[in-house]
């Protein structure tokens, strides 16, 4: 069961990390958009 849970947790850690990278990119672009508007 340890291996099973390890695989499922690893899957969601990988997807979660990628989603976190996308969120960071989104906030960076948003900040740049705001500074362009000024």
């Amino acid at each position, binding site marked *: 069961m340890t*291996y099973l849970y390890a*695989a499922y947790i*690893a*899957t969601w850690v*990988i997807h979660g990390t990628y989603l976190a990278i*996308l969120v960071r*990119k989104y906030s960076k*672009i948003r900040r740049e958009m705001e500074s362009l508007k000024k």
Partner: protein
Amino acid sequence: MKRGFPILAIVTAVLLSFALYEALIGAPTERSMGDVQRIFYYHVPSAWTAFLLFFVNFGASIAYLVKRRPAADIVALTSAEVGVVFLTVNLVTGPIWARPVWGIWWTWDWRLTSTLVMWLIYVSYLLLRRFSSGGQAPLLAAALGVLGALCVPFVYFSIWFFRTQHPSPVIGGGGSLDPRMAHVLLINWAAFLCLAWLVCWTRYQLEVAKRQVEEAQSLESLLEGSR
């Protein structure tokens, strides 16, 4: 799509939860491997989703090489990036399954090695996009995308043509799979496809916004330079 996004997000979340339940509890336990076989419900759909995304990358790369439309370039970039994420899941879950079943984490057989090589090709593709600032970068990346896609059929059919330690195909190729297991496998694939579509759409919008910002910034610096 903007209006449909929250609906698709909810459908994806529900489908992923249901697929997880089916994979961990609903599906029958395999006789020889036991519960560790359930890794298969994430391992296989991840690979199929990655293969599909690499074919999208192939189509978009061809379209970019022919018509030079930025939209095709963005689709190619998006599909490659999300494809690498799914293939990473496949490459990580594979050894976690192999350790208790084969007694080893990794072996350099045709299927495993070709999958790793394909992953490295698409990671190189992303590195090329990330660190090359020249105007030729999308063109070079498109050419690499076309070459990378040639790996997909090779990886897929490697277990048909070569003797490998990897299990034989579960669907087609003489493999037999319990219909209830096939059902759970397809539910998980459907859930992963919805997730891939959502993530690709978000990534596409991000790239469009990024390019617009870069264009506006270069215009601004040009205006400041002329003053």
